[in-house]
């Protein structure tokens, strides 16, 4: 019997948890190949830009981007703006998670809430949130608050919809079990429905974290005093394309870091949902 047999019926006890994936001869060998390919790409880019004399404001060479990144970080310019963007992205994301899970739970649990609030939320979802960004900036100002609201609005829906689906998709057998014990609605929610919905909720959070960064930058484009989006516009006006690329590098790394953070919490919280346990 193979280690990865998915037969849930009569498997022997799985003792060791995850086993080593076969077919990878050198540990970390894949990473070397990926890094090597990336280095070759950068070298070709650098060479092509120099040989073909491409102007800096069209496509700067990687070395110029590296230099811009270095000075931007050393002077504290990037650090300051990054702090603003990171702050509003994370705050907006948490706000979205709070409202998404909270509202989702109310909508899934109470029919009256579903009938009164959900149609409005659907309507709001159909609306491109970016279109109301100028309005939010009028109401909440040019500071960080308006961007937090925009981020929260953009990131809300995937969390909300997944929470509702997750809470409603609870296996009838588990609900029957709770009902046969005379469990209250709250007990069933706390002990069964909510943990059962976690994989769905995290699927929503994974989408939402990417949207949060998007909302943050677009919000800054529409109107802001600081932040990496603000800085991109400023660099754009100055034809400082190397700096724009440098900021994109930071944003890319930030996005990857946030996604990894969500996935880290996900694997910690949902150790049981590792792919071979759906049918318990």
């Amino acid at each position: 019997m193979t280690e990865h047999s998915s037969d849930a019926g009569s498997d022997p006890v799985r003792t060791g948890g995850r086993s080593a994936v076969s077919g990878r001869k050198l540990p970390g060998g894949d990473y070397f190949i990926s890094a090597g390919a990336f280095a070759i790409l950068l070298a070709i880019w650098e060479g092509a830009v120099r040989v073909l004399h491409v102007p800096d404001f069209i496509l700067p060479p990687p070395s110029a981007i590296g230099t811009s990144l270095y000075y931007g970080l050393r002077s504290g310019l990037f650090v300051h703006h990054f702090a603003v963007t990171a702050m509003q992205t994370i705050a907006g994301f948490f706000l979205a998670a709070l409202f998404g899970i909270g509202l989702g739970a109310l909508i899934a649990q109470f029919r009256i809430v579903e009938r009164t609030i959900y149609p409005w939320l659907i309507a709001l979802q159909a609306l491109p949130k970016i279109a109301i960004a100028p309005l939010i900036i009028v109401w909440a100002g040019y500071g960080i608050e308006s961007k937090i609201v925009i981020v929260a609005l953009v990131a809300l829906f995937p969390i909300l919809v997944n929470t509702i689906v997750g809470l409603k998709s609870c296996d009838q057998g588990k609900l029957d079990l709770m009902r046969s014990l005379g469990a209250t609605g709250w007990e069933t929610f706390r002990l069964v429905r909510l943990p059962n919905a976690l994989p769905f909720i995290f699927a929503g959070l994974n989408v939402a974290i990417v949207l949060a960064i998007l909302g943050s930058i677009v919000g800054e484009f529409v109107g802001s005093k600081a932040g990496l989006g603000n800085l991109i516009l400023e660099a754009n006006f100055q034809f400082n394309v190397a700096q724009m690329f440098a900021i994109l590098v930071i944003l890319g790394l930030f996005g990857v870091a946030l996604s990894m953070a969500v996935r880290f919490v996900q694997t910690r919280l949902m150790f049981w949902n590792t792919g071979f346990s759906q049918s318990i």
Partner: protein
Amino acid sequence: MSMTPTILEFPPTSSSAWRASTDSIAVSLQGVSKIYATASGETVNALHSISLDIRAQEFVSVIGASGCGKTTLLRIIGGLEAQYDGNLLLTGSKRRGPNKDIGIVFQDANLLPWRTVLQNVLLPAQVLKLDRKQAMERAFSLLELVGLEGFEKKYPFELSGGMRQRVAIARALIHDPSVLLMDEPFGALDALTREHMNLELLKIWHSAKKTVFMITHSISEAAFMSDRVIVMSPRPGRIIAGVMIGLPRPRNLDLLSDAAFGEYTRKLRHLLDGDHTSKDGAEVVRGRVQYD
């Protein structure tokens, strides 16, 4: 073996051996009917005037084709179905809705994958707010009873299908109910695991002294395990016969090749196939499966 392969009809006409006083009746269904309305507006007669008494500590199995309402019957006894006509009496008093004195084992183990084996077994104790320390001690002894000592800290995904169902049985017994309802508990298991689980369940039944009401698709499982097998028929769902299984206990797998056992399974199969009179002329009492 002195067993004669005669089929004891039910209720017994002459013998008073099975005549029991009403206070030892654990579950009594009196004229229970259930009509479903389907999405298309049709009505389905899921159960038609079911009357059935189950004595305390009796092992009763129900067999019947799909759609004969046996699961509905179990759900009514288990308090999962509140909309029905007729009466349900548990130890003599009328009931409707969930009852602490009942434990249910479903076809799927329905374990909560984020809880350990021990936490899963303790779930009913938690919901029913039983004393935590006593429940814990009971959980350990039940896990020992179902042969899972040492697995307390494992998670369901680390267990085989048979082990999960054993956890479900321990869970159903944690609050010490007097009635155990089982809805095709071993239907998802392979034949060998199933035979093994049948023996395990009989062992548990012997030591825990519960009234068991088990639904099964397997004629031999029903005959092997039970004191009495109820045969149901669909459209409308009704009881067509109750057959006492007079095989001696304790039973072991050798019984499966015994002539008397074969006679019972043959009889049950005839009943299921709609042949209501047995070849040897014994008339099966239809519909009524109650003690008087």
